[in-house]
């Protein structure tokens, strides 16, 4: 081994350690940013190591690609409004997966005939996972952006069609594994994987997209790991596998946080909705009301359900939302007098009980209501006219 290869392996080792520490750091709010910087440093180390350690024949395409990609990536990250982040993540994801698939195709073009059985298997995996993640992420982004209908898209015989596509893809994969000389089969596999990615995501509603994206993330990671097996590159294997498994665990955790099982999210759309598709009135009508109206309605309501969404997080309104909930809760159990006292003292005298019901993070509170607190609800700065 030459000196540069040793250098490359050393940077790969450093990069791998940094990625592990980064994931560890990302799991606590205080260390999250430091974790992200570590991941960035790891990525930089891996890139520098690769450029130094491999015998580069032409620099033109590398420099062009890096420049163009950085420009587009930076523009994507900076230009997007906070509320549109999830779809941008999905879009950026589609690009990463596309890269994995293209690397697979490139490897196939160059080395297909001299590959061993194991390498060929890994190559097949890489191309399949990369391709299906690309189209799957694009569909996810489209659903979140509203280009594609957000509700589950279903049709009769969907299961049969999906199964047929999956079997065709796997069939092509096996055939390619045994007979690598048949180019058409390889490209059919690629095409089938693209189609399968679409079929996989369209029956899932856009509310569940974060889970799907996390899962697709996991697929992209595994595709990168498979690339590592093809190129015999350890940092690809480590980072890809870390990503693959943490993505999977993350999607399971997300499901748990919503009180749902992952099979329910992924396959819940199948079958059940078809029966009621005719009568379903998804969507409804959004009604915008003024602040005073809202206060009035809250004051007279018997039950209030908060459904926090991404927008609430973006507006950083968690605390405001919680305060509002506490106000309502005070009124419910202690009546008007204790509510006023609570407001004056700045403490809440009643225990706030949260319980989640049904889908998503719905927090439900009951309030036996009197009209008195409408003004406090409107905003705490105003005079307590109602009392």
């Amino acid at each position, binding site marked *: 081994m030459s000196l540069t290869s040793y250098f490359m392996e050393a940077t790969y080792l450093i990069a791998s350690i940094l990625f592990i520490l980064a994931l560890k750091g990302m799991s606590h*709010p205080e260390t999250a*940013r430091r974790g992200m910087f570590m991941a960035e440093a790891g*990525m930089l180390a891996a890139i520098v190591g690769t450029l130094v350690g491999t015998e580069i024949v032409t620099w033109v395409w590398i420099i062009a690609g890096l420049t163009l990609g950085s420009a587009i990536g930076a523009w994507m990250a900076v230009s997007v409004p906070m509320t549109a982040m999830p779809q941008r993540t999905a879009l950026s994801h589609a690009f990463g997966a596309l*890269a994995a698939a293209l690397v697979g195709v490139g490897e196939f073009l160059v080395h297909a005939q001299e590959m*061993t059985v194991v390498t060929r298997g890994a190559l097949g995996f890489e191309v399949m996972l990369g391709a299906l993640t690309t189209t799957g992420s694009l569909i996810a982004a489209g659903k979140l952006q509203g280009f594609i209908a957000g509700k589950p898209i279903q049709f009769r015989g969907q299961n049969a069609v999906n199964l047929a596509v999956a079997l065709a893809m796997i069939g092509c994969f096996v055939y390619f594994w045994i007979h690598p000389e048949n180019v058409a089969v390889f490209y059919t596999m690629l095409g089938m994987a693209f189609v399968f990615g679409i079929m996989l995501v369209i029956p899932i509603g856009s509310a569940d997209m974060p889970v799907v994206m996390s899962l697709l993330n996991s697929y992209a990671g595994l595709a990168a790991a498979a690339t590592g097996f093809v190129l015999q590159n350890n940092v690809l*294997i480590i980072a890809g596998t870390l990503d693959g498994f943490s993505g999977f665990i993350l999607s399971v955790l997300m499901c748990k*946080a919503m009180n749902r099982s992952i099979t329910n999210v992924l396959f819940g759309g199948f079958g059940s909705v078809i029966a009621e598709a005719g009568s379903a009135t998804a969507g409804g009508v959004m009604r915008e009301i003024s602040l005073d109206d809202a206060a009035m309605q809250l004051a007279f309501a018997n039950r209030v359900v908060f459904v926090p969404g991404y927008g609430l997080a973006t507006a950083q309104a968690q605390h405001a939302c919680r305060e509002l909930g506490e106000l309502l809760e005070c009124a419910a159990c202690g009546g008007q007098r204790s509510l006023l006292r609570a407001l004056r003292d700045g403490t809440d005298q009643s225990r706030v009980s949260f319980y989640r019901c049904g889908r998503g993070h719905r927090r439900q509170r009951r309030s036996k209501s009197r009209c008195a607190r409408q003004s406090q609800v409107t905003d705490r700065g105003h005079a307590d006219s109602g009392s």
Partner: protein
Amino acid sequence: MNPAVLIASVYVFALAAFLGYQVISRVPPLLHTPLMSATNAISGISLIGSLVLAGAMKNQPSAHILGFVAVTAATINVVGGFGITDRMLKMFGKRKAEAKPDAKEAAK
């Protein structure tokens, strides 16, 4: 592939899988979205493979073109992914003291 290399690679794969599971298994829901975004950026590691394809294949113009597209796409993923994560995490920075009890509460 040489069997010894293959076995070593499988070891690396298995240990990395185990690590990925262990490191992530206790994350507060507060951090789910930023973490997803960060792992998305890390999955742009396929940039390494793209670089090899774009620059290191001898006498393969078609591979270079494919590699160029792959490098571009992977760089978009890396730069875009980290940029988005950074913007998400910036929102935690200002209210650190308040964010902590929230995390505990959400984890319940």
